[in-house]
C-alpha cells in the first residue's frame, strides 16, 4: 500500500459560541491516498467545511496532526506545526480549492482567473496547459469574459480549471454542486472527476448529495 498523501491524526477543533466552546471535531483520523477521491458527507453544521479549512491551513487546529506528503517532497510536511504564512505557501503550491459560491474573482476575466494561481506560484510558463484545459471544459469562447456574464455551471467549470491549473496533488471541494440544478450538477461532477483522475490528483469533497458521494472511492459520514 502506498504512503498516504494526507494523514489526519486525532484532530480536534472547537469554536467559542456565546462564551462556551462548541466542539466541531474530536479525535478525528483519516488517511487520503494519492489519486483517491474521498467524499465527506453529513448534515449542515456537522463540521465538513471545518475539516476542509483545517486541511487547507485556513484555520488552526486545537489538537492533533495533519501530515501532508506530496510526491515532490522527500518528507511529510507537518501542517500543524507551521505558521499561518508557511501554511499559505503550502496551500498555494500544493492545494486547489473549489467552493459552492464565490469561486471566481469578479474583476478578472476567465483567462486571468485561471492564470492567477500560476502567477502566484511563478509558474506562468505552464499557462498553455491551463488554458488548454479550459478549452477542454468547453470554455474556449469565454476567455475574455468576466464572471458576471457566465452561467452557474460555466463558473464552476472555470473554478475547476483554476483549481487544477497548478497541477496540485490535492483538491479540496466544498459543496461544489450545491448551487446547481441536477442536470448541471451531473455535468460538473463528470468534469471534476475526469479532470482529477486524468491528473492523478487526490480530492476531499464535502457534500450532502448522495448522488455526488456515490462517485467517490470512499465515503466518510459525519454525524452531529
Amino acid at each position: 500500500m502506498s504512503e498516504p498523501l494526507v494523514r489526519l491524526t486525532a484532530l480536534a477543533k472547537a469554536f467559542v459560541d456565546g462564551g462556551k466552546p462548541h466542539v466541531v471535531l474530536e479525535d478525528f483520523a483519516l488517511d487520503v491516498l494519492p489519486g483517491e477521491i474521498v467524499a465527506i458527507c453529513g448534515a449542515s453544521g456537522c463540521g465538513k467545511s471545518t475539516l476542509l479549512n483545517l486541511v487547507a491551513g485556513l484555520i488552526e487546529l486545537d489538537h492533533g496532526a495533519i501530515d501532508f506528503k506530496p510526491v515532490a517532497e522527500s518528507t511529510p510536511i507537518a501542517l500543524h506545526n507551521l505558521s499561518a504564512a508557511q501554511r499559505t505557501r503550502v496551500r498555494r503550491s500544493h492545494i486547489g480549492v473549489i467552493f459552492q459560491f464565490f469561486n471566481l474573482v469578479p474583476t478578472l476575466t476567465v483567462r486571468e482567473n485561471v492564470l492567477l494561481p500560476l502567477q502566484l506560484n511563478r509558474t506562468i510558463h505552464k499557462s498553455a496547459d491551463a488554458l488548454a484545459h479550459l478549452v477542454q471544459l468547453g470554455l474556449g469562447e469565454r476567455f475574455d469574459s468576466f464572471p458576471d456574464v457566465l452561467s452557474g455551471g460555466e463558473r464552476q467549470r472555470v473554478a475547476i480549471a483554476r483549481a487544477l491549473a497548478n497541477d496540485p496533488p490535492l483538491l479540496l471541494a466544498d459543496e461544489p454542486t450545491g448551487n446547481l440544478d441536477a442536470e448541471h450538477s451531473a455535468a460538473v461532477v463528470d468534469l471534476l472527476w475526469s479532470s482529477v483522475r486524468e491528473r492523478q490528483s487526490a480530492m476531499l469533497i464535502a457534500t450532502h448529495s448522495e448522488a455526488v458521494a456515490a462517485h467517490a472511492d470512499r465515503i466518510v459520514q459525519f454525524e452531529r
Partner: protein
Amino acid sequence: MNLIGLANLRFFLTTPLTTLTALLGVALGVASITAVHEIGVAIRTSLPEQARAYLPGMTHFASHPNAGMDEYFDLRGRWRAGEFEDILNMSPVVEGSVVVLDRRVDVVGTDWLALGAGGVVDPQGGSSTHINTVMASSGSGFKPAQTFELSGKQYLVRDVVPGSAPALFADIGTAQGLLNRPADHLSYIAFAQRDVFAAFKHLLERLMPGISRGVPDVTISSFGEPWQTNSLAEDQPELRLGRSVLFNLGALGTLSLVVAWILIYQICVTWLRRQLPVMQRLYAIGVSMQEIRGWFILALIVLGLLATLSGVAIGHGLSSFLLDQAARGMAASAVGVQLSGDVLIKGTFSGIVVFAVAGLFAFDRIWNARVAGRIWPAGIVLLLILVVGSLSSASGLIGGFAAILAACLLTLLALRPMLNGLKRSSWVYAGNLLNRLAVREVIWFQEDLRVALGALVLALATSIGVGLMVDSFRLDFERMLGQRLGYDLYVTSSSNRDLTSLKASVQNLPGVTRSNLYGRFELRDRGQRIEVGHSHFDAVEADRYGYGYALELDQALVSDSFLGLADARVGQTLDLAGRTIQVVGRFPGFGDMQPRVLIHDETAQQMSADLVFDRLSVNTLADKRSEVSTDLARLAEDLSITEQGAMREIALLIFDRTFAITRALTVTALLVAMFGLYNSLTALRLNQQATTSLLNAMGLTRLEKKRIDFFRATAVAFVAILASIPLGVLMAWQLCELINPRAFGWRIDLYLAWYPILLPCGLGLVAALIAGLLPGNDSTIETAALHGEMNT
C-alpha cells in the same frame, strides 16, 4: 433596551476603528467649518477700527467736480419733500488734506447735527465745534487746547478723539477755511440708503462672515446729472480690502464646508451599506422599514453629537492658533476669538442635522435601490454658470465664485462617466493580475467610493488651485519687491514731517551715492479716492515700476486698479482731476489700498500747491551701508531708518503668514477627505470579502494582500489626481484672473510651477495610501460582525 437599538450599538462597538475614524472625519469637518467661521468673525471684528468712522450711519455719497452748497440745500429740500424715498439721512461733507506744522493731516467738515449721535463730534452728546475750533484725532499729534495758525488764521484744538489717521474735524465753514476753499465749496453729500437686502446680508454674514461682500449692492438713489453716486464702503479702501480678504476666506470656507458635507454623506452611505444585510434580515422577520430607519438615524445623531462637540473644540483651538501665527508675522496683537452661538449652531447643523438628513437621503437611495438620474441637464446648467461667471465681469465676486463652484460640481458630475469609461476599457489593462484586480475593484465598485473620491478631488483641486495662485502671487510679489526695493535705506520721520531739508545733508554724507524724496496726496476722481505719488522720476526711479525711462511733465505710471477704474490702457491720455495725463506704464500695485498714480514732482506741483516729501530713499556704496545708517540716525532724532533687506524680509514674512491660514485650511480639507476615503475603502474591502476569502484560499500571502491594498489606494489617488489637476489649474486661473481683479483690482500672472501641483498630488497619494493601508477592515471581529455568522 430595544433589541434593534442594541444591535445598532453593538455594530458600532464591534467595529471600533471605523467608528472612530468616521467620528474623527466628521469632527475634523466640523473643526474646519468652526475655524473658518471664527477667523472670519475675528477679521470682521477688526475692520471697523481701520475704517473711517466719522460718518456714522451713512452708506453712500454723491459728488461731481463742481459741487456747491446751494445744490446740497436744493437736494435736501427735495428729499424733505419726499422725492428720494429710499434715502434715510443726508449730510454735506467738505474734505481734503492740508499741511499743518510740517505735517499733512486730513480735514473733514460736515453738519454734525444732521449726522446725529455716534460721530466723532456729537453736539447732542455735549461735544461740538465752533467756528475756527477743531477736534483732532490722536494720530494727528495735536494736544487739547493747542492752537495753530494757518493762512493767517488762528485755530483752536478743542479736544482729541481716538483715531490713528492724522485728521482734524470741524464744521463746514471752518473746514472750508482750513482747506482754503470758497464758502460755497462742497466735496460730496453723504447719505444713508435704505437696503432692502440688509436682513438677508445680515443672515448671510452670520452664516459665513464676509460672504455678503459678494452680494450686489442695492440700487443707489440717483440725483440726476451731473451727480455720481458711490458706496462709502467702496470709498474706504482699508475696509474694502479687508472685506475682500474676508470674502475670499468665506468663499474658501464654503468649499471646505462642501467637502465636509460630502464626507458626512459618504459616511452615511458606507455605514448603511455595511449594515444593510442585517437590516434586510430584520425587515424579513417583520421589523418595519420606518423603525429600522429611525434607529439608524438615531445612531447617526448620537455619533454626530459627539463629533460636533469635539469638532467645535478642535476648530476653536485651530482658529486661535492660526490667528496667533498670522499676528506674529505682522508684529500685531492677535485678534481674540470667542465661541459664538452662531458657530455652535453651524457646527451642530453640520455635525448633527446634515448627518441626519444625509442619512435619510442615503437610506432612501440605498434601501429603495434608486438609480441616479441623468446628469447632462445639471451639467448644462453648471456649464452655463461657469461660462457666464467667468466671462461677465458684471457678475462680480459672486459670479466668480459661482464659476468656481460650478467647475467643482461639473468635475464631480464627470466622475461617473469617467469611471464608466475606464470600466469599459478595463479588460485591456496589462500587468500583474493582483494589480489588475485592485485597479478594477476601484473602477468597478465605484458606488462604494465615488462620493469619497469626489471629496478627495475637491480637496486636492482646492489645494492645487490655491497653491498655484499663492505661488504665482508670491513670485509676482517678490519680483515687485526686487524692483521697488531698489535702494539700500528707507527714511521716514515719526512725525511725518517734510524731509526736503534733510536731503541736502544726506547727499553730503560719505558713502551715499543717490537719494530721492517721495510725497503723496489724495484726490477724488471718477467718484473715488486716488492716491497720487510723486518723486523725481528719472529713469532709475521709473525702473522700480517696470518703466525704463524718465517721466516727463504730465506723464504717469498707474496701478492696475486705476486702469480698471478709468477703463484705460497704457499709451492713452486721460483726464485726472481736470488735468490731461498720458499713461506711459502700469504696475500691479499689490497691497495698495486704493488706485495709485505716480507722477513727476513737476507735474505734482502743478496739481497741488502744498507738497510734503515725507519719505526718502538712500543708495549707498556696498560697504558703507551701516555707516551711512548710523550717520543718518545722528542727523535727527525722529528719523526711522529701515534697511532694504529687512523690509523685504518683513514683507515676505507677512505674505507667508497671511497665506498660512489658507494653506492650513486646504490641508484640513485634505485630512477630512482622507478620513472619508478610509471609510469608503473599508466598505469596499468588506464588500469584496468573498474575493478576499477566495484569494486567501488560493494561498495569497499577507504581503500580497497588502500589495492589493496598496494598488487599490494608488488607483484611487490616480483617479483623484487625474480629475483634480485640470480642475485645480482652472481654479488657479479663476482666482488669478477673475477673483483677484474683481476683489482687489489687481490681476496675477499665473505661473504653472510644478511644486504647487506635485505637492498636493503627493499629499493626496499619501492620504489615499494611509486610508488604504490602515488596518482594521479585515480583522476577524469586523468580518464576523458583518457576516453575523461563521460557517462550520
